[in-house]
Each structure stands twice: as structure tokens, then as C-alpha cells.
């Protein structure tokens, strides 16, 4: 980067990718669907002027999404027809890869109420570190990092995360400690 001649507009005006067309089409379609649903998903308050109607601001937002979305769609079509800027399918493949980690995250979320915050966090960090290919010291550190996060946030900063159902199987004193701190 440093050996090239810098164009400051790179900072405020980053390059476009061909896959922006996917964003443009999706956002425009969402705007069209929302516009079609506007009358059924908002209500008309009788006796009120238009400026006080509950549907006014959703309407402003949806019209804005339609106008800007249509402009973005046209701009993307023109840009893609004129020049290159990356492979759309390859880019979609990269986005799809994130789906795996959504699943990891949601399994973690679902596990916490059952097995408890600390055990779920330790398992999540260790298994994910293993999945990512870490071995040796980084893998050993993963459960310790999870423990650190739990101690700092739940014991230290007292964030509200309930104890796991499995804690109820433990002796009363230990259960209470785990529910409050871990």
C-alpha cells in the first residue's frame, strides 16, 4: 500500500464490488414487500390528521427505501455493465461461509439455559478453537479465556445471565454459588 501513489478518495470513496448488485436487488425487493404490506401492518386512526397517523413514519421510511433502493439498483446495473470489480458468485460463497458460525453461535445460545453459562462457554470456546484448527497452547488457552470472560462479566460486572438447569442437580450451596457467579 505504501509503495503506491495514494489517492485520498480511497478513504471516503471505497471501490465498488460487482456483488453490490445482490445488496441492491435484495434491499429493493424488501422495500417493495414492505410497501405492499404497509396498509395491513399499520392502522388508520380515525379522526386524526395524516400528520398524526401511526403509519406515517413507516411510510416515509419505506418510500425512502424504495427511492434510494431503485437508484442504487440502477447505479449497480450501470456500473456492472461498464466495468469489472470482482466475482459475484465467489463473494456469495464467502458470505455463505459465515452461516456455519451462525449455527455455532445459536447452539451456544441454546445451550446456556440448560448446561449453564460457564460450561457452555468453555465448551463453545474449546470446540470452536479445535474446529478452527488450533492445537497446542492456543487450544489449551481457549477454555481459560472462556473462564476469564465468565468471571469478568458475571462475577465481576454482575451481568444478568441466569444459571443453567443442570445447576439444580448440584448441592444447594454449590448451586447458589454457581447461579450467582458462574
Amino acid at each position, binding site marked *: *500500500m*505504501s509503495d503506491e*501513489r495514494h489517492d*485520498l*478518495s480511497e*478513504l*471516503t*470513496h*471505497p471501490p*465498488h*464490488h460487482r*456483488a*453490490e448488485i*445482490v*445488496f441492491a436487488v435484495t*434491499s429493493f425487493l424488501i*422495500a417493495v414487500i*414492505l410497501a405492499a*404490506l404497509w396498509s395491513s*401492518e*399499520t392502522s388508520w386512526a380515525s379522526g386524526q390528521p395524516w*400528520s*398524526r397517523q*401511526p*403509519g406515517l*413514519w*413507516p411510510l*416515509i*421510511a*419505506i418510500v*425512502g*427505501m424504495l*427511492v*434510494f433502493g431503485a*437508484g*442504487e439498483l440502477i*447505479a449497480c446495473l450501470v456500473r456492472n455493465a461498464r466495468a469489472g470489480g470482482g466475482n459475484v458468485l465467489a463473494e456469495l460463497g*464467502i*458470505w455463505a*461461509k*459465515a452461516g456455519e*458460525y*451462525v449455527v455455532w*453461535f*445459536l447452539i*451456544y445460545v*441454546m445451550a*446456556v*439455559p440448560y448446561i449453564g453459562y460457564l460450561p457452555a462457554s468453555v465448551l463453545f*470456546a474449546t470446540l470452536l478453537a479445535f474446529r*478452527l484448527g*488450533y492445537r497446542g497452547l*492456543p487450544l489449551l488457552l481457549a477454555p481459560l479465556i*472462556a473462564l476469564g*470472560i465468565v468471571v469478568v*462479566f458475571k462475577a465481576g*460486572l454482575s*451481568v*444478568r*445471565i441466569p444459571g443453567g438447569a443442570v445447576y439444580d442437580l448440584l448441592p444447594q450451596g454449590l448451586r447458589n454459588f454457581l447461579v450467582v457467579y458462574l
Partner: protein
Amino acid sequence: MDTFIDALGIVSRWDVIAALIAGSVGGVIIGAIPGVGPAVAIAILLPATFGMEPIVGLTLLLGIYGSALFGGSIPSILINTPGTPVNALTTYDGYPMTKAGEAPRALGLSFGASFFGGIFAVIALMLLSPVLARIAPMFGSREIFLAALLGCILVVVAHRGQSLAAGALLMFGLFLNTVGMEANTYSQRFTFDLPFLTQGVDLIVVVLGLFAVSQAFVLLIGADEKGEAPTISGSVGKGVREVFRHPRVATAGSLSGTIMGIIPGVGEFTSQFLSYSFARATSKKPELFGKGSPEGLIASETANNSVPPAAMVPLLALGIPGEALTAMMLSVFYVHNVIPGPGLFRNQMDFVMALYICLALLNILALAFLLVATKPLLKVLVIPNRYLGMIILALSFVGIYSLRNSAVDCMMAAAFGLLGVMLKRLNLPIVPIILGMVLGGIMENKFRTSLPRIQSLYSWIDRPVAMAIFCLICIVLALHVWGLWRDWKGKRNGSVQH
């Protein structure tokens, strides 16, 4: 003077001091790790600060916001990778200096410039406070509505070349804010008969999804960069002192950052652009810019570090956040029933002054920490990206789940995380969504409270401040249209001007 002494009393509390130290040191470390950045850290910590007093929570978040930019320059200079997005310009001159064997000097210049910019902005704010205290009460509902509208327009036009996408995203944010129960008629808006949507879409869930979860996903789907931790030999202190030998560049950069920070929706990139362009145009050695110019480094770092204190002006004086990080901080105020705006300056000036003092102190603490800890801090630069992604994902869970122990919130955050991945990969801005949500809420509320006094369209602008804001809106739109026309003309002539 009494206000200042009261403010000192607030700042000298142990919990405020602890938040100051944790925020400034933590911010430097977070900024130094490429791929994390203050937005992710603030989003994650936000729910934890709801249990703290406003001054403590805000000091912690401000500490991270202000000092992350100090730390962000380290990887920019040493490994040519910006620690935070706004440190990108620092790579232009910082990395060539490292390659020329001047890494300690470059780091010192960057730390000194960050300090200069931060302190300059805080002093400017302290001097501006009496003026703000006098002007803020002139802002009624109409003026705040128009100021929020100006913020919306600025956030769109500031994304040059991406205005259409920014506009669509802003409107999407505005739409998200309208989902749920409408407070005046108790009617449902776009809830699709789903009970969890009745309460609306929570701003914190969206923020955590778009900033933290998406960043975790981006890091996890990427690759780890292999490399040894960089080392430096020599002191950075000389570089810090050298900044004061360039008062013209440092002052211009700080002034640019302060002014751009005050204007909602503009932010660091524009201030850096102006500051760097000015420094290059007025330098005796313009050919060095982009190849290791100390003036270029100073211009970049003063401009970005003077923005955080200045960004507090519209937030504190009008309750209007100018960018995503202050929008997050707004929720800390709301949780504690402290309403930022004209009333805050009138009734709680000691609180405002205490925040200013904290901002000044965090700059001092961040600089002091860097002067003694830069060398050991370099080890954080080699934490593998995907490992960081795993940690951010685990931390994001705390932030989202602790809000209301809702798995649905986590699912929504994951969905916004995927949206964030798409936007980040496409270089599209995330900030308009957040500002759309926050400014949309303010606009709807102020629009409604203005209506009883509105007889005709002219009533919106029949007061001096409202008229001034309306004129500003017209000027901004006219300049944007003129810029578009110039670009179009440039393209037709074969040369694009930015």
C-alpha cells in the same frame, strides 16, 4: 468556577477513576489489535454499563472511544494494517517511516499528535461550553427535528460515491425504529403478529449484531496472518516532542477534527481528508506525503483524535448523536433517565464539565501508558484473527443475552451479523442504519410535539435557529448536487474529481 470544582468532585470518585484507567488502558489495547476496534468493544460493554452510574459508564465508554485511536496507530505504523478503520490514513506515512528504520519516531509522532488533537478538542469544548449553554435552550422541538434531519442528510451525502446505498440503509434504520407498538395510538406497526416484535427492535441488539457479531464472522471466515511480533528499538518520547515543532499542521488537523466532529454524520474520514489535504498543500516538502512525511502523520492523527470529544457536543447539547459510537452512548443516558439536550446544559453543567475533564484525563493516561508500555503492547499484534473472532463471538453473547435473557435477541443479532458481513465485505457503511434508528426516533417524536405550533409550512422555520438549520440543509444539498454534477462532468471529460 463553582461548576468546575463540583465537576472535579465527581471525577475524583474512586469508581470514576477506575473507569478512566480501565477505559483508557483498555482502549489503547483494543485499538492496537487489528480487527477489534472501539465500536466492537463499546457494543459489547454497553449492557454491562447499564448497571453503573451514568458518569461511570460513560467514562468507561469514552475512555475506550478516545484512546482506541491512540492504539490503532501502532499496527498502522509497524505492520501497515490499521488498528481501527480511521487509522487507515496513518499507514500512508507511518509504514514508510518504519521501513526507513524510523518506527520509534513515527510512533512518537502519532502518539503526540493524538494527544495534541484530543486535548485541543477538549479545550475547545470547555471554551465553547458557555456558548453552548446559551444556544442549547434556543433549540425547541422544531429545531431538534430539523437538526436531526440535517444529521440524516449529512450521513447520506458524507458517503460520497455510496450515497444511494447510504440513503437506503438510513431509511432501513428509520423503518426498524418504527417497528412495534406505536406509543400514541397503541397500534401495532409491522409486528406481523409476532409477540417479540411488539416491543420493537432493540437498538443494542442491532448495534451488537452489526458491529460485534458481524466482525466476529468476518474474522472467522478470513485467514490468520502469519508473522512475528514486530519489535522496536529506541524511545518514542522524542517523536512526541517533535509534534510541537509542527504547530501549524497540528492545529489545523485538530481544528478540522473538532469542527467535523461537531457536525453530525460527518466524522473522522472527512476531517482527516481535509487535514491531510491542507498539510500537503501548505508543506515545504509535499513530495514526502505518502512516503513517510512527519507532517502527514501529524495531520492524520490530530484530525482523527480530536473527533471523539467534539462528537459529544451534539449529543450533550441537543441529544443528537453524530455517529454510531455516540448513538450507543445515548442509550446509556436513556437507561438512567438522563436526557441529553438543552436541559442537561441548564441543570447539570457539573456533569457535562466532569465528562470534559474525563476526556482530558483519558488522553493524558493513554499517552502515559503508551510511553511506558508500547514495547510489551506489540505482542497483541500477532493474536490470530480467527482466534479473535472466537473471542468476540463469545463476548457478543454476553452483551446480547444479558439485555433480557432472550434467545430471540441472539437470533436477531445473528441475522444483523450476517447483514453486517455483507455490508463490510462490500465496503458499504453500517453507520446509516444506526443513525437512522436513533435519529428516526428523535424526528418522529419531535415532529409530533411540534405539530400544535405549526400553522403552515413556514412555521417550521419561522424562528432564527430553525431558519439557520434550514439554510444549512439547503447549502448541504446544493453542495452535494454541485459535487455530483462536477463528478459527472469530470467523468465525461475523462478525469474524475473527488
